[in-house]
């Protein structure tokens, strides 16, 4: 609790003590015994004192609203309802409602305090998650370390990260080795080992050794800044349900207020009973007329859900995406880097008769020298020699087909059968399952290299979990060969597979699947953010995974999984479903109780006590329920 809340609590406690003391004195007949017929006035004064202690700020606020000509808010409604209840003292023929008037204000303030506390708590858990922002960076200047604002560090500077410190800016380790705690970013508790040459990401905690890091980005574009920006802006993208509540709240308050006036005026004019009785019913209406329970708890649930997800390393960019995610019934996966680890390994080299396997491999490695594609990386890894880049020129990437380059004045072509066919070279099929890279030198076929990708450990479990969670269709898209794709699909239990797709084919495949969506169902696309930004945008929800450090992925996706475990997709869906369940529970509960109390109040059955429960009690229950959204399974 902060200072203001503590002050509030003290006021409320004093008021409650005074309220109950008065109540006991009144009910036991002590006041009546001492003051005789003036009893009601003494009780009134005591209740009114408690009322002022608890709620003077509400009265002030209501007055300043009236002065500004914008009276319709809860402070005004509370003031009218409570003052109205106290005013019954002026009508001796009705039972005075002083206790009720005081209690309404007390409950209201307890509710406000609670709400402020709950909001503060959820803010805190978010800011704990956001407490990944480093305050300073150690820069080496003339051999001495200086602490500077990370914003002032130029790209390419050398910074030093001591054990126990957070890495302030993305960069590459120049020397030193250490263990990094990435839990704040990924939810992953196993530390990551880094040494010279490794990329490090801001926000991770350096655990054991001293690292010297060359920065590759300015602070503002580093991972940590981007994540903070993303989470902060998440609550600005409102879900449909939230917009519905906002519209509902705008209509609800004036309608109920109007109904209260009609209820207070019309029946007594028609001679259906005494004025005081109907005015009291009207006041009861006013107490229930605040939509606070909804206006608070729905955004709070969403924010809780987003906050909870972020603790698992799942960044949801807006409440609307959380809502969409809960309706997903088709999940489309990109294969490489998503279901498979994307770390390809050369499993076989098949040269043509009379050709040295090393010749095939070295040519491939040279042609792929400038590519960061996982396949290229695996070939370079398998090639034992040094690559002298001066021997290479005219490198051309042929999207989805392969690459061609001039190496030592020989035209080297590395790619799939389509590339071979296009350039009029012959090729051999391979009987191994995997990605087959054909290599042709000066148009003469030299042989092929077989590369296989490893399926991720939790991929099969993910598909099972998604099916269990009600996802009807799990589809895999890949640029890989059909037999490779089908082998993976079978192993994982996927429902559909589309193979041999070029990047642009993936967009049209997703569009086709989108057309098949029926009713409320939504389609999610899961990719690793490399080359699939258009698909991520096209799907109802784009999920990028393994996004630590990948700007393009963070930019294009709606949901970002910080680590590369597909099981987080099922988790994200569970969080989304739970959040939506809580949201709807709150909506149905709050509106249901309010309507019920309105009906009972109109009939004269519900008294003001029940109305107070209908207002504050419901709000508190709804807030408590909303806070459940923050709790997530690890």
């Amino acid at each position, binding site marked *: 609790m902060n200072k203001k809340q503590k002050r509030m609590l003290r006021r409320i406690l004093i008021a409650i003590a005074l309220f109950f003391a008065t109540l006991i004195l009144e009910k036991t007949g002590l006041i009546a015994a001492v003051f005789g017929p003036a009893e009601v006035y003494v009780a009134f004064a005591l209740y009114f004192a408690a009322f002022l202690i608890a709620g003077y700020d509400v009265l*002030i606020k209501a007055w*300043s609203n009236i002065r500004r000509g914008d009276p319709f808010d809860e402070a005004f409604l509370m003031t009218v309802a409570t003052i109205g209840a106290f005013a019954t003292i002026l009508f001796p023929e009705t039972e005075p409602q002083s206790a009720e008037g005081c209690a309404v204000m007390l409950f209201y303030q307890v509710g406000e305090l609670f709400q402020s506390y709950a*909001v503060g708590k959820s*803010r805190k858990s978010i800011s704990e998650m956001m407490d990944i922002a480093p305050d300073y960076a150690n820069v080496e200047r003339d051999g001495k370390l200086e602490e500077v604002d990370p914003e002032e560090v130029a790209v390419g500077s050398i910074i030093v990260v001591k054990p126990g410190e957070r890495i302030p800016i993305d960069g590459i380790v120049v020397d030193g080795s250490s263990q990094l705690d990435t839990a704040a970013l990924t939810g992953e508790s196993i530390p990551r080992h880094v040494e010279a040459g490794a990329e490090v990401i801001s926000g991770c905690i350096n655990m054991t050794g001293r690292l010297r890091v060359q920065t590759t980005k300015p602070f503002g574009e580093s991972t940590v800044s981007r994540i903070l920006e993303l989470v902060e802006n998440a609550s600005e993208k409102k879900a449909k349900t939230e917009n519905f509540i906002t519209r509902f709240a705008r209509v609800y308050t004036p309608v109920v207020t109007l109904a209260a006036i009609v209820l207070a005026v019309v029946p007594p004019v028609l001679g259906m009973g005494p004025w005081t009785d109907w005015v009291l019913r009207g006041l009861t209406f006013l107490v229930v007329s605040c939509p*606070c329970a909804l206006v608070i708890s729905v*955004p709070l649930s969403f924010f809780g859900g987003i906050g909870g997800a972020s603790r698992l390393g799942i960044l949801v960019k807006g409440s609307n995406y959380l809502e969409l995610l809960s309706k997903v019934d088709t999940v489309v996966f990109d294969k490489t880097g998503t279901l498979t680890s994307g770390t390809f390994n050369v499993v076989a080299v098949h040269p043509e008769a009379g050709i040295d396997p090393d010749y095939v491999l070295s040519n491939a490695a040279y042609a792929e020298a400038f590519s960061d594609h996982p396949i290229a990386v695996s070939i370079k890894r398998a090639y034992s020699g040094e690559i002298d880049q001066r021997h290479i020129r005219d490198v051309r990437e042929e999207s989805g087909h392969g690459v061609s380059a001039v190496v030592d004045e020989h035209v080297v072509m590395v790619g799939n059968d389509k590339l071979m066919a296009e350039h009029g070279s012959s090729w051999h099929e391979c009987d191994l399952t995997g990605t087959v890279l054909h290599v042709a030198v000066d148009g003469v076929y030299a042989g092929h290299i077989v590369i296989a990708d490893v399926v991720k450990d939790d991929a099969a479990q993910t598909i099972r979990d998604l099916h269990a969670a009600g996802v009807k269709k799990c589809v895999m898209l890949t640029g890989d060969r059909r037999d490779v794709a089908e082998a993976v699909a079978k192993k994982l239990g996927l429902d559909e597979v589309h193979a041999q797709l070029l990047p642009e084919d993936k967009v049209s495949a997703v569009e086709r699947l989108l057309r098949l969506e029926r009713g409320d169902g939504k389609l999610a696309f899961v990719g690793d953010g490399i080359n699939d930004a258009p698909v991520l945008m096209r799907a109802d929800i784009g999920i990028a995974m393994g996004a630590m450090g990948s700007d393009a992925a963070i930019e294009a996706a709606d949901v970002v999984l910080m680590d590369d475990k597909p099981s987080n997709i099922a988790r994200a869906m569970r969080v989304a479903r739970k959040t939506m369940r809580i949201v709807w529970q709150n909506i149905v509960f709050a509106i249901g109780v309010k309507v019920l109390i309105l009906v009972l109040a109109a009939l004269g059955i519900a008294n003001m006590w029940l109305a107070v429960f209908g207002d504050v009690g419901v709000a508190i229950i709804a807030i408590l329920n909303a806070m459940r959204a923050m709790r997530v399974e690890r």
Partner: protein
Amino acid sequence: MRKSFKLDEIDCANCALKLEDAIKKVDGVDDAKVNFMTQKLTLTAPDDRFADVLDKVVALVADIEPDCEVIR
């Protein structure tokens, strides 16, 4: 110029919405955003009038939400 300020003690989502609408109407404000959850006010106003506009906004906030304070 665009600048963010912390809005201390803004406790209700509805009030945040109202506050945002009111700030947007202040003369000289190009755009304003009140983020309830992060307690942040993002104000966009012309450079030469920024200090002036900010004063008006702070006064307005103090008027509408007496509990809430703009920390500059």
